[in-house]
């Protein structure tokens, strides 16, 4: 037997060992392949280096949270049309953490994140927070025969901690008088990837349950006990839909678009609330004074917010940009800096916010919009304000 090097990472195509074929021309082919590779690589390198914004149009690049990604892409599309193709906005997704890393490294001009920066971080990098929309996390379930489900925070946290493992647990029964609860085991479905959705959901569980806070805590990925992990909001949605007796958490838009059943949650005021853009906006309206754009946002929290109609698992999602766009070495020219600020101004006002509602994101309350105006007015290019 011929010796073979087997690597676990080898591609499927490589694994079929072809019978040896002799041939004098083999080296010619080989040399050609090598030469072609070099030429192509060189061409790519040259292409990448010479790619710059042409004079007429501006391209703004962002990356980060996937939670607001559908909305940002919609904005990019609409704004591109509205400016007659002059401003092109690219948003690469990749997750909140990746977005923050990329803006710190100045690879992107703006970053999306679901978790605000810590006070020291926003100060150290002089990044400002622009809350651009609100999202809600929905508790989706699949229990045939259970057309309506009411839950409160403590019960929900016990389900995800596996302290409650069957549907006919007395705690669930007490919240759903009159419903016949099945005896099946509950399958919990969570995110297998690091995500802002998990950050918001685990944040809520940590607010309403001391046990959850001390055992698991809030984070973009959580060490869930015995839960099925699925990738992305689409993955969790699909898994809940196809797994009887399951319960999971997904972003509001996915729940509505996919017609997944969602639980009514008991809010801070004791009312059971249906998740919707309106009840999400209500949660944000309950906030008092917000920090300024360059202030500390790490304490801003609309989880378990007060107010009769407030949905309890809601959160801002933020765009981060540099306060001074000239000194940040992003090689942004003044035109691009102006385009970035104008685009964000457009997005947080009614032009952009009207798209939020139709895509099941909650529109920003007026108080947040005026805070964003102050922030955008304070953005400078080489010391000069851009608006």
């Amino acid at each position, binding site marked *: *037997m*011929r010796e*073979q*090097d*087997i*690597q*676990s*990472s*080898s591609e*499927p*195509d490589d*694994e*079929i*060992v072809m*019978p040896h074929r002799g041939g*004098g021309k*083999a*080296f010619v082919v*080989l*040399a050609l392949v*090598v030469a072609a590779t070099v030429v192509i690589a060189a061409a790519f390198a040259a292409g990448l280096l010479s790619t710059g914004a042409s004079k007429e149009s501006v391209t703004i690049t962002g990356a980060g949270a996937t939670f607001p990604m559908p909305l940002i892409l919609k904005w990019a599309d609409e704004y591109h049309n509205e400016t007659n193709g002059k401003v092109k906005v690219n948003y690469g997704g*990749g*997750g*909140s*953490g*990746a977005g923050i*890393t990329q803006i710190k490294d100045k690879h992107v001009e703006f970053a999306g994140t679901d978790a605000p920066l810590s006070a020291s971080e926003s100060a150290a990098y002089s990044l400002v927070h622009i809350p651009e929309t609100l999202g809600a996390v929905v508790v989706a379930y699949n229990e045939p025969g259970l057309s309506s489900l009411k839950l409160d925070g403590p019960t929900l946290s016990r389900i995800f901690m596996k302290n409650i493992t069957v549907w006919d647990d007395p705690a669930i029964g007490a919240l759903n008088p009159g419903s016949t609860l099945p005896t*099946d*085991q509950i*399958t919990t479905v969570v995110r*297998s*990837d*690091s*995500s802002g959705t998990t950050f918001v959901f685990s944040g809520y569980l940590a607010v309403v349950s001391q046990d959850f806070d001390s055992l*698991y*805590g*809030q*984070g*973009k*990925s*959580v*060490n*869930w*006990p*015995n*839960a*099925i*992990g*699925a*990738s992305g909001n689409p993955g969790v949605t*699909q*898994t809940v839909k*196809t*797994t009887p*007796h*399951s319960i999971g958490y997904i972003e509001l838009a996915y729940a509505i678009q996919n017609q997944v059943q969602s639980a009514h949650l008991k809010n801070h005021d004791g009312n059971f609330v249906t998740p919707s853009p309106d009840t999400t906006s209500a949660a944000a309206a309950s906030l008092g004074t917000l920090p300024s754009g360059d202030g500390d946002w790490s304490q801003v929290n609309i989880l378990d917010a007060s107010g009769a109609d407030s949905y309890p698992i809601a959160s801002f999602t933020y765009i981060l940009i540099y306060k001074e766009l000239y000194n940040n070495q992003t090689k942004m020219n003044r035109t691009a800096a102006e385009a970035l600020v104008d685009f964000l101004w457009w997005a947080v006002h009614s032009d952009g916010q009207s798209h939020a509602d139709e895509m099941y994101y909650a529109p920003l309350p007026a108080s947040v919009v005026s805070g964003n105006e102050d922030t955008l007015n304070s953005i400078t290019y080489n010391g000069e304000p851009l608006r």
Partner: protein
Amino acid sequence: MAARRPNSLFSMGRKDKLFELSVMSVAGLTLALVWLLVAKMILDAQQSISEFGIGFVTGGAWDPNRDVYGALPFIFGTLVTSTIALLIGVPVSIGIAVYLSELAPPWIREPLSFVVELLAAVPSVIYGLWAMYALRPVMVDSIEPVFVALFGWTPLFDGQPVGLDKFVAGVILAIMIIPTVASVSKEAMRAVPDSQREAALSLGATRSETTRMAVLSYARSGIFGASILGLGRAVGETMAVTMTVGNANLISWSLLDPGQTMASLIANNWGEAQGLQLSALIEIGVVLFIVALIVNVLARLVIGRFMKAVPTTGGGI
């Protein structure tokens, strides 16, 4: 090569020299790549290695909130799913290979071999999607309940079938390695000289006896090699496993419980990992490399033993 033929460089034509140099550099590149890979991984995993030491391999938590990381559930998941894949995949592959090599008439053999080889080139995400939408319902509705009814009393099939578990992941892995294992095994069997078959037949052996005595024992090392290739794919497979295994950080003997493999852990967490978690993920890569190495060495030792037991070695793939 040059060492064995000291004068060859002088006697070779320019074309030959160029040929030798180009293939040598490509081969050397592979070796350099493996070394670079290992060195770079160990370097980048340094933070995690110094933080957890050997406890990394025995630790059961993967908790980015508390920055505690351990690899045991993922080593467990990798070994369990790969074992299921081999247990199901290898016998089926040998069956396919025997039919193609010994029994099938040429007009069936050629197209069928082609189709089997074609299956090896299907991207794993396709297998994964197929597993989620087509295999999973069948497993949950028909196959897993049968196993629960028959073997529910063992810890292996304890629980409520959900269809995102180690069993389903093992089955899809088996399906994925079959094309590779079958086609390489078939080549090994085709390489058995006809004189072997004729000798067995002339001793009065039946067709199945001939296959067993002459073909299978002669091609044994080739079949083992094929199985190792399959194992390599099963251990490192990422997409299809991530989509079916349930991605739970859990060590459970029940095949109906979700689990997680090392490759799927890396795929799931790489995107947003930073700092110590990133370093720990890279250390998972190192552990995966070591596990693959150990499995290969063990398999080679087994082959070595068989090659000694059977004096007629050969049947090169």
